Each structure stands twice: as C-alpha cells, then as structure tokens.
C-alpha cells in the first residue's frame, strides 16, 4: 500500500469528475433542491424541522452511493481496471483513492446542502447546527463506501442501478423514519440494528430533539465510520487480480 499512489488515484478520479461539469453541478445542486422542496411542501408546519435533519443525511447518501457505484463499474468495464491490476498499484490504493476522491466530493456536497438547509431554509434543530453537517458528511461517506463495495457484484449498469432499490431502499424502510425502530416487529428491529443507515437516522433524530446529545451522536458517528472502514476494506478484498 502506498499513500502516494492512493492520492494520485484520488487526484485522477477528481480530475475525471472535473471534466464532467454537469455531474459536478448535479452533485452539489440536487440535495439542495430536494431539501428546498421538502421545506416547501411542509411550509407553515413543524414537520420540516422534525424530518429535515434525517433527510439531510439521506440525500447525500443516496447520490454518493449511485455515483460511486457507476464510477467503479466504468473502471471495470473500460479495461482500465485490468490494466491497473497488472501495474504496481495495490488494491487498497485503488479503493482508497476512490474513497478519498468521492469522500472529498461528499464532504463538499454535505457542507453545501447542510448550510443551505440551516441558513436558507431555516431548518431549526435542538442540537448544534454544525453537528448536522458533520453527520451529513459521514452519511455521504457511507454512501460512497457502500457503492464501492456493492459495485463489485454488479456486472452491468442495469444491475448497478437496481442495487439502489435492492440494498438501499430496504434500509430506508427500516431506518426508523417511517416507523420508529423500537416499534418495528422484533425481527425487523434486529435487522435494522445491523443496517448502517439506521445509525445515520438515529444521529440526525437525536440532534433534532436533544440539545445536549453530543455523546450519543458521537457514538452513532463512530458506528457509521466503522461501517465505512469495513465496507472499504471489503471492497479492496473482493477485487480480484485474476479473472476468468
């Protein structure tokens, strides 16, 4: 493993995104537009303040999941992955490079969306505003890590895109946003305990209602970062130099 090659790879991925201006614009604008829409449909009600934060964590997660899945699938299909695997690049350098590049994009995206939600849309939570942004960044990282890992199992774009309804929407249903997790049937509650998005939503809900919940949020953030590390590690482990 080489930190230099990891950074060189991250730089290359970011350069690719920079050449694709529309993707860059979509990455930054879409979560803001969705938050704006959410604030608008719940105008003059307290609902935006109660579900705004969990959804602020959800949108960057979804977007980064999709972008990362497709980017790594493209690397595989274009033959550049095969070339890279014959070169002195460790698998961890490649996966780590992607994680750094998309992690950086995710950070910018979550910063912009979070700032927009709090200052332009007036999202009002009991906890500190900066905590919202920290959790949004961590959630976006989680989307990146999940995309990196799952894209290894997608042979085509059709499959990669369907991994969203297959692996992300069940997490959305079970994360506590529709029905609080402790009121789910037992089996589903246990399932939600091992799904990373549950902790993302837990952290955001805690910030929403509790002014002094730093420790609880830190625990959730720690768990999510644990998932991120495991998923990135699995992403590197499932990459095979020799294929059929």
């Amino acid at each position: 493993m080489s930190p230099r090659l990891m950074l060189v790879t991250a730089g290359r991925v970011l350069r690719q995104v920079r050449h694709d201006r529309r993707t860059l614009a979509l990455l930054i604008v879409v979560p803001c537009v969705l938050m704006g829409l959410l604030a608008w449909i719940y105008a003059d009600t307290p609902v935006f303040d109660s579900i705004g934060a969990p959804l602020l964590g959800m949108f960057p997660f979804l977007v980064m999941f999709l972008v990362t899945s497709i980017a790594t699938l493209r690397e595989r299909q274009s033959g550049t992955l095969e070339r890279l695997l014959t070169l002195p690049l460790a698998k961890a350098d490649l996966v780590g490079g992607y994680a750094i590049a998309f992690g950086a994009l995710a950070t910018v995206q979550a910063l912009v969306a979070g700032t927009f939600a709090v200052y332009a849309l007036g999202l009002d939570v009991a906890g500190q505003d900066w905590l919202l942004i920290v959790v949004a960044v961590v959630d976006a990282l989680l989307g990146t890590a999940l995309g990196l890992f799952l894209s290894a199992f997608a042979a085509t774009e059709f499959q990669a895109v369907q991994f969203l309804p297959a692996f992300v929407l069940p997490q959305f249903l079970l994360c506590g946003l529709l029905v609080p997790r402790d009121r789910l049937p037992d089996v589903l509650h246990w399932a939600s305990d091992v799904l990373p998005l549950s902790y993302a939503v837990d952290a955001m809900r805690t910030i929403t209602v509790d002014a002094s919940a730093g420790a609880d949020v830190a625990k959730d953030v720690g768990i999510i970062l644990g998932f991120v590390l495991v998923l990135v590690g699995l992403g590197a482990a499932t990459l095979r130099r020799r294929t059929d």
Partner: protein
Amino acid sequence: MLKNPPVGQPAIRVEGLRVVRGGRTVIPGLSLEVPHGQVVGLLGPSGCGKSTLMRSIVGVQKVAGGVVEVLGLPAGTEPLRHRIGYLTQAPSVYTDLTVRENLAYFAAVVGTPRSGIAHEVARVVEMVDLGSHVDASVGALSGGQLSRVSLAAALVGAPDVLVLDEPTVGLDPVLRRDLWVIFRRLAADGATLLVSSHVMDEAVRCDRLLLMREGEFLADDTLSGVLASTGAADAEQAFLALVDQARDRAAAGGTTTSEVSS
C-alpha cells in the same frame, strides 16, 4: 530498460498452460519460451486464444494448470508489475481525461518519480506521435489515436517485457509501419515483445512467429522457416496450409497436439 539480461533465462516461459473459461477449454496445454530481446508475433484468427495467452502472461487470467514465468518470476507477482507493459485489446484509458492526464497517471502508478513524470509523458507521446493532441480529451480522439494513447500508456516506465494485444488494429499503413519501427527499436534496446495480430502481413516484422488456432500453436518458427516448410508464398497462405494439414491429420485419426497434451 533491462541493461544486462540474465544469461540463459528466457524472458517468458510457459509450460503446459491450461486455461478453462466458462467450462470450455480455451487453451488445452501450451508451452513457449521467449528469449530476451526477441519480437514474437502471435498470429491467428480472433477467438483462437491469443488474448487468453497474453492475459495469462501478464497475470490477470485464472489458469487451470501449468507454469507461466516472466523474467524468471511467476506471472503476475508484485516485482513484475514494474517491468511488464500490457496493452489490452480494447483501448483501456480514461476517455474523460486528456492524453497528458492519462499518461501522467499511469506514469505515477508505475513508479516514475514526481519530477520525472512530465519528461516521461513527453517521451511516450513522441514515440506514438501524438504530440499535437497531448491536451485533447481522449474521448474526442479518433479510433486510431485512441489506440495509440492506450499503447503509450503501456510504454510508460520503459518496461522490460511488452505484451501488446493487437496494437496496430485499425491503424493506417503508415502508422502501422511507424509503430513496427518503434517495436524494433525497443527490442534493440533489450526489451522483449509479444505482439498479437490477426493481420498476417505483419509477420514480416517479427523475429519469430507463433501461428495459433484453437488454443494451440500450429507453427513456432521464423517467417522464412514457416514459408519453407509449407511451400506457401506468404504468412496467410502458410497459415491456411497449416490449418489444412492439422485438419487432414485429425481426419486420418492421427494424434493432434491437443490429444497429446490433454
């Protein structure tokens, strides 16, 4: 570039290579030795196993049996990755980056020090004659230019062994001739090249020919040797004659190479 090749040890050694893909035996049992500095042409129709053999040599192909060594080391092992250049059949570069950005990335990956990258990029760009397009986005290039970018990416870091899968496909005759001049020059500097093609007239450029069909070598000889043994006028005629011979042998119930090795 390898200055003092070890005496007696081949650059590429394949022994009893067997590859099975999707339940089908693609290579039943191949053996091959390539000495240092040789330009070997791997000729045969598409689907005959050329790419599979090349992928085995660069170490990205799952193999079912046999030995594949490059520069005395098992294929695909870590120390070899600095020393082997691989051109995949389809151009494998990033179409959303410029020529320079692509080559600078691959140069960094093969270990070119930061200060040497610009020089290395300029060197390979000049070799494949893409100087006027160095800041063009690869996606905007023509097919021939695209395959030259891909070739340039295989040349960065001046590897000792080059495995080039159809490097001249789709190129015009002038460019093909120029590339063969480069390949000869690389070999003169000590590099070993295995170059595949389904264009039989490229045979005249090679020190040695491997005529391949259905995962086996029909011939392993110089062009003049192949022509003499078949009485054919050119490589294509020789290839057809060899295919006919193999078919006649099989029809007569004689043992073919595949029955011996499997």
